[in-house]
């Protein structure tokens, strides 16, 4: 194997670029104690969800699937699952255990309430972190990585500079054996024919068109003009006039390679190459699905500026807008605005993305990580009852 970065090889064979211990709340009720445990125990990340109680059917299955996918994620060395009762904690933990990593469970009722759960949780999390700290990075290959490409706070520079540079990186990364996930099909609208034409088979071609149609039908059913919602007011101030224009600029971040697979929210890719995941356009919901599907790193292209990152997966922020790079430098990992100011070739910008990505894969932290800009937000697919 040609060693390309240093990662953590997990029992299930996947590779992590981080070595967190997750304190995972199975439902809203145990979020406060989850936060308090994570605040106390160095090396942990709190994973809190605003729902989880009385969800039914497909909606509940999607929440469980996503939280379990994040629990199994290779950037996590071990998991402490909290819930109101041991039964609901174990329902989620049992879906994480097949990954082979240490998983512990605690129920608030069984621990004697908040202070009991807090004390037991701190003890358990501390033990897990001490053990995880003995794991070492080892040489890994690009084919071990799933990288998701995302954009947010887009403007016209996104479609001219940061997205095409990201797309050129995506092509090269796929050519080296890696996997890229492109998501947010509502933002393919007006450009979906270009992606569908690149699908390697007819079912995936039809699926791409159907994903976009579903979102378009939902927008029509709401009886509104999408403008002001998507494109958003900041997109419009940045020069984007219609969703079609935004979409045509957005899809280029996925590069030009064939679409080898289409997957649903939080499903893991089974193919190497360019994969499309069906997620909503809101960045936090989309990134939560991408992480649930196992993406280890996210490249996040922004125009007007956007701060938020994925939970668990380092999120590398790139911009091609010189004003944004200057105005909010602490949120931008990579300033690609010389594509616009000096007409730097996209290939050179893609080289810089590659170099930065390698550093992040081997341990360099991103702006989102250092500023705690991480938000878990599982999409809802129906009401709680």
């Amino acid at each position: 194997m040609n060693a390309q970065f240093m990662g953590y090889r997990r029992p299930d064979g996947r590779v992590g670029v981080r070595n967190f211990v997750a304190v995972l709340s199975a439902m809203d009720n145990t979020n406060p104690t989850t936060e308090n445990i994570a605040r106390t125990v160095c090396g942990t990340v709190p994973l809190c969800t605003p729902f989880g109680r009385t969800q039914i059917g497909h909606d509940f299955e999607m929440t469980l699937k996503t939280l379990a996918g994040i629990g199994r994620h290779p950037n996590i060395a071990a998991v402490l699952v909290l819930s109101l009762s041991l039964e609901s904690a174990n329902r989620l933990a049992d879906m994480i255990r097949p990954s082979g990593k240490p998983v512990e469970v605690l129920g608030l009722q069984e621990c004697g309430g908040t202070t009991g759960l807090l004390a037991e949780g701190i003890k358990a999390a501390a033990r897990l972190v001490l053990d995880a700290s003995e794991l070492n990075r080892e040489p890994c290959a690009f084919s071990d990585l799933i990288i998701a490409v995302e954009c947010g706070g887009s403007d016209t520079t996104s479609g001219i500079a940061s997205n095409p540079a990201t797309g050129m990186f995506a092509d090269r990364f796929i050519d080296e054996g890696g996997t890229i996930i492109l998501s947010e099909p509502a933002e393919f609208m007006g450009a979906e024919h270009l992606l569908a034409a690149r699908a390697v088979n007819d079912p995936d071609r039809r699926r791409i068109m159907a994903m976009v149609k579903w979102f378009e039908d939902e927008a029509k059913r709401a009886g509104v003009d999408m403008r002001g919602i998507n494109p958003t007011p900041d997109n419009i101030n940045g020069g984007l006039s219609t969703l079609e224009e935004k979409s045509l600029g957005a899809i280029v971040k996925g590069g030009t390679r064939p679409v080898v697979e289409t997957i649903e929210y939080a499903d893991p890719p089974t193919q190497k190459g360019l994969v499309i995941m069906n997620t909503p356009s809101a960045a936090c919901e989309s990134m939560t699905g991408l992480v649930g599907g196992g993406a280890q790193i996210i490249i996040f292209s922004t125009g007007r500026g956007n701060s938020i990152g994925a939970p668990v997966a380092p999120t590398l922020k790139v911009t091609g807008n010189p004003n944004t790079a200057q105005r909010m430098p602490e949120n931008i990992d990579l300033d690609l605005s010389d594509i616009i100011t000096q007409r730097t070739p996209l290939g050179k910008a893609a080289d810089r993305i590659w170099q930065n990505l390698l550093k992040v894969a081997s341990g360099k932290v991103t702006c989102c990580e250092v500023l705690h800009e991480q938000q878990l937000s599982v999409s809802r697919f129906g009401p709680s009852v």
Partner: protein
Amino acid sequence: MENAMVMNPKDNVAVCLAKMNAGETIGVEMDGKAVGVALKDAIPFGHKFALRPIGKGQNVIKYGEVIGVASSAIEQGRHVHIHNIESIRARGDKQ
């Protein structure tokens, strides 16, 4: 260096990469040639202007693809944005 970018030779709009005033001429490369377009409006950084006259109801083309239709006639050099073009897709307001 040109202050505007044309994404595809089929396009009837270009992206302005500087803050321009009405009455100024902006340099743009079209079909491999540098040409000047006289701007009839102020154009903010990152916004579009018309390379050619676009009639009401005609397609607005960027990246070689349709990004919307002109909701009123647009002269060459005019600012092209939400005041004079609209989306074709997901128009729940027109159901």
